[in-house]
């Protein structure tokens, strides 16, 4: 292939120096600006409002999960990360239907938030947890207890997993 080069540089370009000073100018200007790099993990990012971390389940006031196992989130989930087994609640007058099992494969979840939008019971919400790295795939499958639980604690566990 024949490349057409622009051989005719102007005098200013031929001198180089203006370009070098321009670049140094930018460097100098930024030396006095506020730092934007965080020393993660010692320093943490302030999450914006509405940030979508991984989904979690919400506990109701009566200490039963709000979820009624309607399976709408399972149906809407584009990455098929959710799987639910429906169960009947022991005390039928209090609650008829609960999830007997509720699993989210966080490895598959793409944090789109569709489950939260589909849920008629506001039982599933996007948490602000984003640290889900682990060394074993099984650890990525969150069961009901874990999805209802205290994510902070689990996130620490996860960082230690495999040690």
């Amino acid at each position, binding site marked *: 292939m024949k490349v057409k080069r622009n051989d005719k540089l102007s005098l200013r370009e031929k001198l180089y120096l203006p370009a070098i000073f321009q670049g140094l100018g930018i460097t100098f200007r930024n030396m006095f600006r506020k730092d934007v790099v965080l020393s993660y993990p010692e320093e943490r990012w302030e999450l914006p409002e509405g940030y979508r971390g991984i989904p979690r389940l919400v506990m109701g006031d009566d200490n039963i999960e709000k979820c*009624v*196992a*309607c*399976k*709408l989130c399972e*149906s809407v989930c584009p990455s098929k990360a959710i799987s639910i087994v*429906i*169960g*009947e609640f022991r005390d*039928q007058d209090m609650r*008829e*239907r609960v999830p007997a099992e509720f699993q989210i494969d966080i490895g598959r979840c793409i944090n789109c938030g569709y489950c939260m939008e589909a849920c*008629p*019971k506001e039982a599933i919400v996007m948490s602000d947890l984003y640290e889900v790295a682990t060394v074993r795939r099984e650890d990525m499958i969150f069961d009901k207890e874990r999805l209802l639980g205290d994510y902070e604690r689990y996130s620490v566990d996860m960082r230690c997993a495999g040690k």
Partner: protein
Amino acid sequence: MELIKMTYNGVEIETEAGKPLIDLSRELGEEIPHFCYHPGLGPEGSCRLCLVEVAKIPKLVPACTLTTSAGMEVIANSEKVIKARKGVLEFLLINHPLDCPICDKGGECPLQDNTRLHGPGHSRMEDDKNLNFKHRIIGERIIHDAERCILCTRCVRFQRDVVGNCELTIKNRGDKATVDLFSGSRLTGNFTGNLADICPVGALTSRDFRFKARPWELEQVESVCGVCSMACSASTWWLGDQLARLTASPDSAVNSWWLCDRGRYGRPSENGSAGNLVRLQGEQVPMSREETAARALEIIRQGAGSCAVLCGSRSTNEELASLTELNGFLDSPFSPFAGASTEPRRFLAALDEEKLELNDLARLGGFDRAIILGRDPLETHPVLALRLGEAAANGLAVTLVGEQPGPDPEGFTQEWSRSSETPESWLQGQGSSAMTGSDRLLLIVDEMLLRSGRLDTSILDLCRGREGEFSVVLLTDGFNRRGLMAAAGDREDDNDALLKALEEGRIDHLFLFGVEAQVDFKDHEQWVRALSQNGSLIVQCRDMKELHRAAEVVLARRPTLALAGSMINTLGLTRRLTARSALRCEDYQWWLPLLSGESAGKAVGNEG
């Protein structure tokens, strides 16, 4: 039918006179929304969702009670009609709990669909909703949630008009009105599952399907029920490889809109198959289907000459054809069809010759008298009994003649006259007068009577001797007995020769396929005894557990509802069995390589 001209939504159309407008709209592809109307139950006019405008009538009129007539001008999409629908739906939802997330109907609910399509989209109701009982068990099969009920009375009318036992009623008035049982009773009978099918909301749901799955997860396959030889049209609903439920499919010739509970819930699929087993040094060992088939082929190859095949009524027509070929290939002199007795076949041939068979139950209304000889169809073919009951309420005189009329469930067959004489003596006594007393007679004969030789084809002469038309139904036992009989043709053989040969030890190997012992063998115990003495059995049946243990090779057999093929039902109609498309196939026709002369190795993977 008289054809008339009328306009519908401004378009001139030609249609039959006297048809409900809802049916017309369905045919035109823009169904008028409705709740209380059900084609199997007729109009009621209580929900008011179907209101339409008709020229020259000042007010809106319900399309379910109004029938087509010449020159009628119907407008089903005017502003006025749309506003009326919105209003009706808003009213219906005033006390409806909207608990769709936990309701089994959610996803296939007419109330959901109609509200989305025609509803106002919001409610102006500020007061609290009425509370009522929820999840109340009202019958062995059915659970009732009174809050969800929209009082369409379909359930009440089904029990009253179709089953005839009036077990449900509406109690109280106004916003306190509730569907309820009469005090202290429960839903009984063999048809309660239909209530879950017809209830347009989640008020009556099936306990069997409760919280099992959401409808959109299921794959619906149109097939037939696999229990008795009526083979009613049914939808099978699969959750993966599991059959989640059965629902009735409309079919006017056979089951109308209904199924019996025995068919709906007593799925034969549930009785497990033993899987693939091969006997090695006296012990039965589970093996892969390829190894098992190879062993079966080996046995049959070695034993040619003293091998026989016996197939039963749980085989499809296609399997029967192929096994007939195998029987010929093995040079077996015996009939391979268990239970295809000679007399019933002769009877059918006579019916066929004169075209006497009734094979469309929609024509039941054309008879004025039905005589049933033999067992109570309520026990053997419940849906036929249901349809006879419906016809009886419309003037068909039904007489049941059998020495043991089944227990008469309250109200169900009260219109029937029952005689506990034996059919033989009844025919000689009052039978002939009963027969001549009617213009259009329907004779229903239990195959058992013909098989056991108590009656024979000459009963047709009794009917021929009288004046007026008559039709006959032969009630067969065994799922595909009619298919077996058709395959057997006019062969003079009742399996007695085979039984004798077995008892005398002249058969070395016997291949049993799709046999249902209780119905296919005349003397079940004698057969089991003869079979278990036999040298080596190859068994491919779901039934016959007692023989599985004695067998040399046991091959897995699919449940009837997972079979694909055709069968002939008791009315002589060819019915199609459709299995779920991607069902894992565990049984197959392993003998095919023998017939096509290929090697056994190639046979493997030959899907059945």
